[in-house]
């Protein structure tokens, strides 16, 4: 019985239950600026994700360019690891220009 079920093509049941995946939307508000994360939405494929992003996030000229990426492809850092990830930068003051002690009369530097 099980074997027979497996032979049924993956139409009906399987696909019917599949929900539209989640996409992240990035919008460039105007040329010269970076794309910025605007939010997310559900869509069946990337074309639909772009079209939905246009309707949901740019109804009032908010953008000139849209990127969409399926959310599952984003690897995010875990805030629990923020210590090891970001704290080492905190004590590296020598990476900032003010660390260097120079005479006041020195100009253009």
């Amino acid at each position, binding site marked *: 019985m099980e074997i027979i079920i497996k032979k049924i093509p993956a139409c009906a049941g399987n696909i019917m239950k599949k929900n539209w995946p*989640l996409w992240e939307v990035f919008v460039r508000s105007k040329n010269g600026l970076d794309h910025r994360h605007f939010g997310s939405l559900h869509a*069946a494929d990337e074309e*639909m994700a772009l079209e939905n992003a246009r*309707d949901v996030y740019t*109804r009032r000229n908010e953008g000139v360019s849209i990127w969409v990426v399926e959310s599952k492809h984003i690897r*995010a850092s*875990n*805030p629990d690891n923020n210590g090891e990830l970001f704290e080492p930068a905190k004590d590296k003051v020598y990476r900032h220009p003010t660390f260097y002690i120079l005479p006041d009369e020195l100009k253009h530097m």
Partner: protein
Amino acid sequence: MTETQIKILEAQFEARIANDEKIEPKDWMPEKYRKTHIRQMSQHAHSEIIGMLPEGNWISRAPSLRRKVALLAKVQDEAGHGLYLYSACETLGITREELYEQLHSGKAKYSSIFNYPTITWADIGAIGWLVDGAAIINQVPLCNTSFGPYACAMVRVCKEESFHQRQGYEIMLTLCKGTVEQKAMAQDALNRWWWPALMMLGPTDDQSVHTAQSMKWKLKRKTNDELRQQFIDQTVPQADILGIKIPDSDLKWNADKGSYDFGEIDWDEFWQVVKGHGPCNKQRMKARVSAWENGAWVRDAAMAYAEKNK
């Protein structure tokens, strides 16, 4: 995790909020914070979605092309606002399908105001003026709420909402400057929407079960009674400009407190509507559920097409 560890984490968490830090989805949070946010944000999203129905009713019958494009744009914004809020809510680990399921099964609530009927064109004016007006008062403080994705969504919603209220007021203004019958229609709409709009700001503070906790988490910055008073104080002069009368014989300026005194709200009516016995509860749910069910084949076909093209 032991109970002591949780207590420590909770204390750190409360300190972050007290310090005006934002909480992001992957940060540790008390289970109650997560649940409360799912409840409030989804309720908010559902209200936007159900809120399209009473107004959608009038798109095809708007009196001019100018009114029709404006109403269409407003209803489209509401769909958009629902979508911003659903996705913000999903960052807390609940799926869109679960959220819809809660709405369709009646487990989740939406604002009870949308269970009133829109029987004349003036109702569209009154909704924009009063219902969106009350919504703005509720929503502006939420732009500063502690949960990052909710605050971000609310900033966008508030930016877009002001046109909604202005288009409603303009409809009322036009009717009030029109024929005697048109002005009477505006007055009738105000009579029917005034009290439900006041109820929209929620039960009185002594009856509100969530207020204390929500204030602490900055999910609420002002109490229901404060918001209601603010709404009344700013709306009364607007009714004066229209030249129509707010249906409350106890309404009068109180110079000592610098705000209006107002009459008793019929909270029995409010709770009846919340419990599903309002004039349109069944009709709204039926329209929503059938839209979802009748659209199932489209969603399935789109998914099948996407799978095939992979």
